[in-house]
């Protein structure tokens, strides 16, 4: 067994028990990266040239390597959001989430790939080229946090951070066969996360065990005065508890979703998972989410694009990132910087956002969407009066092949139906591994969501599922 195969808990324990040194662990991970990266292409920037020194030798992550999605700011280390427009920008500060990990002793192996500005669900909309799924390198790893999911799946690092605006943690976690947690909005500080849809964005972890997610969440979930949307209550308890039970918990399926078709492996996983839940004393029920099923997709894109286009107004070439020096005037400078700097998906969302908030349409789209969002949040509150968790797919199908993206962009948007209502209502959602599909050998993931601030309870339920469904294996990463 190689050291890189250890999960976060084992790696951290091994270092503390002096079974191996942080340097040995680092070298093992680096070797693993070196052997797979040609095939997977998860990194945008590698920072593993020399073994980094842990900032806190007594921290719970002392000496454990990690990677960050490249929309998390890292002091002095290039941060691109997978866009040309940021050029070689090196932030003068650390994102709070990374600061917390760093202070707990984690060491950085690099910044990983994503869809540009987190817009996309394939990790193919990147100025740095696509990332490949370590389970089958001809397939997409999902997105937008595809690099973070692939790096954990391929055994580069035991855990990583991504961000989720409409499913960008849960969908790649499911595609790559790892666990991914989208925390309650406000649970993790967004300070230093390059914004896409500010009211939807949330940072969260990827790992190969639920216990590891609990460890990372215990460090991430702290109040940060730098983010005004961050919770102020006392820190939630993410302590791993083997005795946690789901006995008597009501776990609901969404009535309206039953009409949608799922690929066979996912439908089977749903059945298998319900059985596990029932065998452990949970009660399977049904809730109705009519507004969610009808309007969530339209509502989500109206809000996300409206917020995104204002978040992206700052990229003008004046202060940082890509710029031109020979423009005839300021207008030409803005036009050239933004025309060259942004990729086509980002441009189309900026244009859509501009149109959705344009005065003659604003009430009909942006304002209407904010109202629908309130209805959606209320609908979930009502639903969680009738159940403790909702079980649903992450996506209706398994990862497709790279280059086989659907011609119809709107269909790509609709596959997000299972993930994005969670962001609209600010709920926590866990993407968990259920096993491998017999035919394709691809991992199959599902999703458990709960009311706001139920993150630790969801993880407890996830632990029981992991115990009965099994933990994912490290993917071969294209290496035979």
């Amino acid at each position: 067994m190689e050291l890189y195969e250890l999960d976060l808990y084992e790696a951290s324990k091994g270092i503390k028990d002096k079974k191996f040194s942080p340097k040995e662990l680092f070298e093992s991970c680096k070797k693993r990266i070196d052997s797979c990266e040609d095939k997977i292409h998860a990194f945008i920037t590698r920072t593993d040239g020399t073994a980094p020194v842990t900032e806190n030798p007594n921290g719970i992550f002392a000496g454990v390597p990690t990677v960050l999605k490249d929309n998390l700011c890292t002091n002095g280390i290039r941060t691109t959001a997978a866009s040309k427009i940021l050029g070689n920008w090196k932030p003068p500060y650390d994102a709070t989430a990374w600061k917390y990990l760093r202070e707990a002793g984690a060491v950085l192996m690099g910044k990983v790939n994503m869809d540009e500005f987190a817009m996309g669900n394939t990790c193919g909309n990147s100025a740095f080229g696509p990332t490949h799924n370590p389970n089958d390198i001809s397939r997409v790893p999902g997105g937008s946090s595809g690099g973070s999911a692939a790096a954990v799946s391929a055994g580069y690092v035991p855990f990583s951070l991504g961000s989720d605006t409409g499913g960008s943690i849960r969908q790649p976690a499911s595609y790559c066969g790892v666990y991914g947690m989208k925390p309650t909005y406000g649970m993790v500080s967004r300070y230093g996360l390059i914004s896409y849809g500010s009211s939807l964005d949330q940072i969260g972890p990827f790992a190969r065990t639920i216990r590891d997610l609990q460890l990372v969440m215990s460090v991430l979930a702290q109040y940060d005065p730098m983010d005004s949307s961050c919770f102020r209550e006392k820190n939630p308890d993410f302590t791993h508890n083997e005795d946690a039970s789901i006995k008597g918990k009501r776990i609901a399926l969404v009535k309206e979703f039953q009409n949608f078709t799922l690929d066979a492996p996912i439908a089977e996983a749903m059945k298998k998972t319900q059985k596990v839940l029932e065998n452990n004393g949970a009660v399977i029920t049904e809730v109705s989410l009519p507004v969610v099923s009808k309007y969530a997709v339209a509502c989500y894109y109206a809000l996300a694009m409206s917020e995104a286009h204002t978040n992206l107004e700052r990229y003008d070439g004046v202060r940082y990132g890509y710029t031109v020096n020979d423009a005839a005037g300021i207008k030409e400078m803005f036009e050239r910087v933004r025309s060259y700097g942004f990729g086509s998906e980002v441009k189309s969302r900026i244009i859509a956002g501009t149109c959705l908030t344009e005065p003659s349409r604003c009430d009909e789209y942006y304002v209407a969407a904010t109202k629908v969002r309130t209805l959606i949040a209320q609908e979930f509150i009502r639903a969680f009066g009738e159940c403790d968790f909702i079980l649903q797919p992450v996506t209706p199908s398994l990862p497709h092949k790279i280059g086989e993206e659907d011609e119809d962009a709107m269909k790509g948007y609709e596959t997000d139906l299972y993930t994005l209502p969670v962001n609209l209502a600010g709920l926590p959602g866990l993407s968990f591994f259920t096993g491998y599909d017999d035919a394709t050998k691809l991992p199959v993931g599902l999703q458990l969501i709960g009311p706001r601030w139920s993150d630790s309870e969801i993880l407890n339920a996830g632990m029981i599922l992991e115990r009965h469904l099994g933990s994912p294996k490290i993917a071969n990463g294209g290496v035979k």
Partner: protein
Amino acid sequence: MSELTFTPVIGIEIHIRLKTDTKIFCACSTDTDAPANTNICPVCMGLPGSLPRLNHNVVEKGMLAGMALHCTVQPRSLFFRKSYFYPDLPKGHQISQCDLPVVADGYIEVHDAEGKLKKIRVNHLHLEEDAAAMHHSASDGRLEGASTSYVDYNRAGMPLGEIVSEPDISSSAEAVEYAMNLQRRVRYAGASDADLDKGMMRFDANVSLKCSDGRWGRKVEVKNMNSFRALERAIEFEIKRQKKILQSGGEVLQETRHWNDAKGVTTASRVKEFYRKFIVEPDLPPLIVNQEWIDRVTAMMPEMPDVRANRYVHDMGLTQEAADILTDDKNTADYFEACVKAGANPVRAANWVRTEVLRVLNEMQKKISEFSIKPEVLAEIVRRVDDRKLSTTQAKEVFDYMCANDSGLDDAVKKLGITEGGVAGNALVEIIANVIKANPDVLAEIQSGKDTKGKKFKFLQGLVMKESKGQAKPQEVVEALTAALKQ
């Protein structure tokens, strides 16, 4: 056909810099004297990933300013993103409360053309961040045509309150009085220094004309006025310009115009405004102000200048004019009240402050807070005059000496050789004896009865006054000199 008449309809938007130590959304200093681009951080530079966080002191100053304008604090207000592309705007949008402000519905009183008091309604005051300051190499100081432009982000994120009036103003004179009153009141409230020279108060005016034939000219927004004089001239220019267009049957375009102070004209703005509905700032929660907070800020509100002036007139017997002058600046009024508290007669203290104190401060280019003569000491001077220990002339001499030499009261009296209570009694008798002795011929003339018109007597009297350095009381000199001549 009767001659057409035009009624100006004017609304004013005033930006004031709210007086806080740090910026509105980050902890950077608001020091205006710092070298360019030194008071900056990821937040006010709008760096990717940074998030705004509201400075609650800014909210408090906004509430104080609003209360000073008789506004009501709104329990819930919101921040929005107001988008436009310009290098002075780090995020490409300004965070502003525009649509749902923290305070609303107030008024300021001004005098109309007939001298009657008139209320100008204040629609609201909203909080927002300032943009960076730009310096262009072009001769007209504007971006277009400049070969090089510099941006100083120290100003980005400075806290502003934008105060929007209803279109209740009918003349440039009313506009200026409105602006001056507003300045005085926000200064009183401690909400803003509103220093025009430092760009802490800036004006935009919306001007339109209502014509007696029923036509109503479109609203023209005039920007870039940085002094009361510019505000007055810009409005007058715009009224004249629009009148001319309407008189010739033309139509006034709805547009934004730029005031050129050097040329004294308004010109159509070359940049088209990008109108867009604002989206809610998702990084800031709604601003909730509870009653407890309102009560706390209300308790911080000082007495406003008009209320104070009324009190001076009714309780202290000052004239309205004196009361207005004293209350124009809060520190001056505080100084005056400290004098009165220290025992000075209010009317005489008021005269001293408004004439001598303000004159000296003006000469020395000092603020009253820097004035060397403390109010208690001025009260003592006033009292000594009342007690006839010092003549008014002497008191002024002493006062000037104290100002010039930074000396204490008793010290000044001594240095000036003043005998308190004046030269009288034996001292006076002695001076008279010496004067008579030195002028035997005059004495002889008087005693021989030739001084029928009393000229010679006046001559001696003058000499005595001179010898006493003006410290003898004229009546006593007459009496003592008469007595001495009879001997």
